């Protein structure tokens, strides 16, 4: 339900800013398309060459454009996505090794390092904390 027909100051400003910053719909569609591609294939062996080939654009252009709209490079975005997904696997009780490969990492060592860097604790520690928490909840203590 819309409160009133007149536009608020906020909406007016948002529309003005959008016109200046996000006027290139073609670029927007391109980077959002690439992001969705990463979202759907985070567990496979993605790289910049494949992504740029997929859209017939130079990989350097893609890199610049993606960073301009999302503030992250495609690679950084992919890592964040994989780490987020790995948390789901770990919470469900999947082993650290299985989780690592399930979300697309090739090496257990780099997975553990990246996980610790982003989350602050190791995957093993994270799983331990999460599982003991859910056990507590189910026991209604």
């Amino acid at each position, binding site marked *: *339900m*819309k*409160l*009133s027909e007149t536009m*608020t*100051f*906020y*909406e007016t400003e*948002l529309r003005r*800013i*959008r016109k200046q*910053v*996000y006027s290139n719909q073609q670029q*927007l569609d391109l*980077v*959002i398309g690439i*992001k969705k591609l990463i979202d759907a294939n985070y567990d496979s062996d993605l790289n910049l060459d494949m992504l740029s080939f997929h859209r017939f654009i130079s990989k350097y252009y893609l890199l610049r454009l993606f960073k301009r*709209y*999302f503030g992250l490079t495609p690679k950084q975005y992919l890592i964040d996505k994989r780490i987020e997904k790995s948390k789901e696997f770990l919470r469900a009780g999947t082993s650290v090794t299985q989780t690592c490969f399930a979300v697309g990492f090739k090496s257990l060592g780099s997975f553990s390092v990246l996980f610790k860097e982003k989350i602050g604790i190791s995957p093993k520690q994270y799983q331990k904390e999460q599982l003991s*928490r859910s056990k507590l909840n189910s026991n209604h203590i």
Partner: protein
Amino acid sequence: MKISIISIPVRDQEKALKFYTEKLGFIKKLDLPLEGGNRWLTLVSKEAQDGPEILLEPAPLHFEPSKVYQEALLEAGIPYTQFDVEDVQIEYDRLSKLGVEFSMEPMEMGTVKVAVFYDTCGNNIQLVEKI
């Protein structure tokens, strides 16, 4: 340092508690009595119950500048707090059916979609979906 609490100033804590739990679906985490009927009242989101808490604090009732600032933001339609959702349009439809009033309908803004509603306690709240 850890981020654990984000304050939302509300004009009526009880009313806010009802709105934020019954309409928005947050879960009450702490509810401690303070002096003068005020409460230390925090909520968490259902999906992240060990995540950051929002504190519904009665600042506008006791601190004039807070009241003035809140009124000015409200008047201008400016949201000071935002929540992430999977799909803004679905939330917009769901909340509208529950009688929640929107000052801005779902709108794409670059790589996100946003909408703004009124929390019945003095605040505009923005919903955000990453497209």
